[in-house]
């Protein structure tokens, strides 16, 4: 029964849907990592974006405008993180933890103040982004059912893999980001301001993460619930790391996590213990990280006899 379910186009369709928020955050993690900073604040940025996505889209009565406003806000949080880390010299992990903790508390408080509700934003009349079907592809058997009829943001996230790849590897700014991340002194010795580059990279990272956050409450669901990111920011951090902090690598790993979270949704229909099934995505993360570290260790042993 499970095997059938996994091979069905509905499952793959659900996988893509579940991958979307993780993928955005993975790309965000990759851009930050490439400039030499671990953006652990992804979780908090996504959570803020999930709430403000609902509020902004309700305010403008437009999904697109809501998304754009949320992206601006995500960029600002990235800027804030950069300010703490680069200007005030706070430890990057501590600054991120602070942002995550604030996100937890502040989203509950703001939701309560604006909607009078503690847990769900269903009273807010938000405008989610639509699903769209792709003309020719939707008629192809199987493939059509997998790919077509997804949320706009799912398509955007796939395009973003290519865009971020081109940005990092083909554009001057991307080249500089990679140079700064790998050898800050070298970059500075040719007159590149490493701080400026890191500011820019963190803002971009924030914007990407906010798109993932927006999707959660304006696509995946159509309302905000407290704590709805459920660790996706951290999973994305792991995914990016395992994918070698490259967009394409991160994409393949986040597909794996997307699949495991889609699987846990399917299994809930069977009579498996709910708590265990809920743990699936996180267990996948841990196992994935363990395998990854093992492989890397082996590789390093091989490399240690380099010349």
């Amino acid at each position, binding site marked *: 029964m499970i095997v059938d379910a996994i091979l069905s186009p509905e499952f793959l369709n659900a996988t893509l849907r579940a991958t979307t928020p993780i993928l955005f955050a993975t790309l965000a993690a990759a851009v930050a990592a490439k400039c030499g900073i671990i953006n652990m604040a992804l979780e908090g940025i996504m959570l803020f974006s999930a709430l403000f996505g609902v509020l902004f889209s309700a305010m403008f009565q437009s999904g697109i405008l809501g998304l754009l406003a949320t992206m601006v806000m995500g960029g600002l949080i990235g800027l804030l993180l950069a300010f703490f880390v680069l200007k005030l010299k706070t430890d990057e992990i501590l600054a991120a933890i602070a942002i995550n903790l604030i996100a937890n508390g502040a989203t509950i408080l703001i939701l309560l103040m604006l909607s009078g509700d503690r847990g769900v934003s269903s009273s807010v009349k938000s405008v989610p982004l639509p699903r769209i079907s792709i003309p020719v592809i939707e008629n192809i058997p199987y493939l059509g059912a997998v790919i077509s009829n997804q949320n706009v943001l799912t398509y955007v996230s796939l395009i973003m893999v290519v865009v971020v790849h*081109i940005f990092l590897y*083909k*554009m*001057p700014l991307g*080249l*500089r980001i*990679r*140079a700064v991340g*790998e*050898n800050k*002194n*070298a*970059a*500075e*010795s*040719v*007159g*590149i*301001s490493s701080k400026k580059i890191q500011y820019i990279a963190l803002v971009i990272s924030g914007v990407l993460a906010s798109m993932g956050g927006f999707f959660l409450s304006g696509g995946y669901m159509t309302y905000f619930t407290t704590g709805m990111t459920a660790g996706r920011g951290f999973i994305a951090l792991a995914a990016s790391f395992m994918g070698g902090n490259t967009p394409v690598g991160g994409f393949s790993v986040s597909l794996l996590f997307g699949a495991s979270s889609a699987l846990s949704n399917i299994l809930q229909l069977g009579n498996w213990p709910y708590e265990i099934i809920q743990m699936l995505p996180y267990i996948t993360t841990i196992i994935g990280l363990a395998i990854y570290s093992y492989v890397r260790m082996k590789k390093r042993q*091989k*490399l*240690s*006899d*380099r*010349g």
Partner: protein
Amino acid sequence: MSHNVLEMKNIMKIYPNGIVAVEDVTLELQKGEIHALLGENGAGKSTLMKVLFGLESPEQGQIFLNGEEIQLKSPLEAIKKGIGMVHQHFMLVSSLTVAENIVLGIEPKKSIFVDMNKAIDISKELAKKYNFDIDVTQRVEELPVGIKQKVEILKALYRGADILILDEPTAVLTPQETEELFVQLKKLKELGHTLIFISHKLDEIKSICDRATIMKSGKSKGTYKVSEISTNEMSKLMVGRDVVMTFDKKPLSLKETALKVRNLIVEGTTGVVRVDDLSFDVKQGEIFGIAGVEGNGQGHLVEALTGLTKKYCGDILIFDQNISNKNINEIRKLKVSHIPEDRMTLGCAANMNIMDNLLSNQYQSSEYSGRFMLKLKKIEERVNKLIKEYLIKCKSYKQNVGMLSGGNIQKVVVAREFSTEPKIIIANQPTRGIDVGAASFIRQRIIEFRDAGCAIVLISADLNEVFELSDRLAVMYKGKFSGVFTDVKKLTEEELGKYMLGIKKDEVLEGIIYE
């Protein structure tokens, strides 16, 4: 009189930790000269140059370019004014290609993208113009140090450097590479560039520099015409006393065989054979020198001997124990010390302090660590003693090693490795980047160890050093020994050169193995 392109007047630099690195120094550069900057480790040479390149802002002093006062707040401003710098430790992004490194920061563009083809063309042209033989599409991490050095110079030239600062460019080069570099530097001079050249090797300064400014403890000891001052006078001004250049060695007295290598074959990453069927013995009480152009397998040999690689066949016996199954720590427990070639990657932890670095091979010993805690008092005593003994110039042992001057970092590594009562010392370029005074001190120590019955393998690209110290000398060429000399004194430099370049090769190696 030719005019001064650049004047640095009364420069003073105090680091945030209170170290006065440069005190009231004045430096004048004449157009088209090669100007040497001389001084002991920690004299402030690099610091003065960092001020000139906008990396450090001076507390006091003025800089004039062509008679006009300029302010240099960042490297970008220095670059714009035509000042370029090749740093003491490489400033290259390893995973990027040569071309990418050269154009980084001022990339040629095609609409919004980097025009990679153009970058490659530009780099190729540049290399051709200055006669540098480089494949610009290679990744920097795959390049030998000599080529990396050239990439650094091209980087500066691409940015239009008229005044080029070279901070110890020859420290990592072999004599052959140095020679090649000098040809190129002379060409730069002909083309009208002005060069500042830092080196601890006085004969190099004699051979290419026009004038020299000598620094000692942050102060200037004056500028001299190189043709009018002898190397002895130079070193006396630098160190403040006469430097011993010849050493007394006790007559050779060989004891047990400490190191026995049989049919050793070491493979590099790509599967290329780097060490090709080497056999040799080293006894306690002798210095076994290995000369050779860098990249002929010396590095791989050292890696096998010290346990850094296990990818070899053949036997390595240390006091009759085969080390093929022993890890680095177990090999060290056999009283083997290792001074690695590259102090920054293998030699030290740059962002830890001097104490941690000096103690990193000792913290497990019961003398310094109790059941739960480190014995800090004892540690402190030892560390302070080492700092004094090895003349490590620092404020206190709490200073990060990365903040020390290049030569002082090397001293930290040497002090650590020499302080564990080793029975075997594998010294790979032990005096690289070290000033004449300190180098003579370290060589003296190596000889003392030998006299006390230590077995020493000395790998060095410095011919003087191998000549001066070795009891037996082997030359390595393409992974094999091309010659072995038991009477080093009889050997001439020309002869050695022929073996190093593989022009001469002995089929039978007499005296490489005892018995």
